[in-house]
């Protein structure tokens, strides 16, 4: 929820879309983007780019959060700095697979509560309790539409990743 908005808020280019093709093993349980062919499903992935320095470009990739998209995450976590798990506070449970995945993969992640229309029904502490997230993982509130919020979430993530490396 709000991935493309989040990427677009900080990207220097309009978010681009690329497609990955799902394999038959995972296509069977996908009913949203089913193409009619029993063996293939195409999944869109949006991404943006931030040039941080003359020789330093940061790429942001937004992928769906359901666990049937793990095959894309496996690809993205290699060499990645970390992940922002963007949570729609109306549907907290939707982020369980992503949280499980990143906890198991060891990739640093932060949880960003993206309130619908800027409204935040829960505090980070309440969400931490509900999701059983350890005290080390940052949880912040964000409005994915605002550049400052998205930038702040990225800074929190990189700080967290740096702390994890130095620990």
């Amino acid at each position, binding site marked *: 929820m709000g991935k493309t908005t989040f990427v677009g808020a900080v990207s220097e280019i309009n978010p681009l879309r690329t497609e990955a093709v799902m394999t038959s093993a995972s296509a069977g349980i996908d009913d949203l983007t089913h193409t009619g062919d029993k063996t293939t499903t195409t999944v869109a992935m949006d991404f943006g780019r931030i040039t941080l320095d003359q020789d330093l470009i940061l790429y942001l990739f937004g992928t769906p959060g359901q666990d049937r998209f793990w095959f894309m995450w496996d690809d993205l976590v290699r060499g990645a700095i970390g992940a922002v798990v963007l949570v729609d506070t109306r549907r907290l449970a939707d982020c369980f697979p992503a949280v499980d995945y990143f906890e198991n993969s060891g990739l640093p992640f932060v949880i960003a509560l993206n309130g619908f229309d800027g409204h935040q029904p829960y505090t980070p502490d309440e969400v931490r309790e509900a999701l059983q997230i350890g005290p080390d993982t940052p949880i912040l509130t964000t409005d994915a539409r605002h550049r400052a919020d998205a930038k702040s979430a990225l*800074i929190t993530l990189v700080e967290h990743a740096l702390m994890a490396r130095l620990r």
Partner: protein
Amino acid sequence: MATPTGGHPYNGDQRVPGEHGDNRFGFPAASGGQGPGQYQPYQQQEHQQQGAPGGPGSEWPQQQPGAGWPQQPQQRHDTSQQPRIQPVQQRRAPEPAKPAAHNPLVRPYAMTGGRTRPRYQLAIEALVSTTADPARLQGQLPEHQRICRLCIEIKSVAEVSALLSIPLGVARILVADLAEAGLVAIHQPGGDEAAGGQPDVTLLERVLSGLRKL
């Protein structure tokens, strides 16, 4: 299943007229009604070379539904020429080609000769820059030419896929082909080998500093 079956076997000895010597990856016969070596997509290649690139794939003839193409046989390659590119680490499940109905112009994996895995595992954010002299692009596959023209200004593999409307898996294969032929340079993202390829502390600090300055 990686590719549909039923097409004519690919004949590795067939060459497209005018094809560059470095480019060994010709198209297999696209429709069942043609013999090996009848490279349908090439029939309009001159359009491409006359400098009028249309939309993505628009110059390509329609693929006949149900026509298959066989897997291209493994061909030799010299890994020592590309020390910056990591060899493929693991065999991934092959990605099936998209149904023709969703891409009426040409099936994506027709561009790769039916191959579904690149020779090298390119990171999605690996950067691609064209090193070839424009004169060398003559006679290359149309898709290879488009990538080379795009990457005169450095682009990531993801951008190549998005900007040319090529599925990611196909873009990886085509870019790896170009790197092998020496037409583009690949800049794979670094990483701390000791930490399983994670970015090293210096890089993280630079990213953090860069983000704060935004």
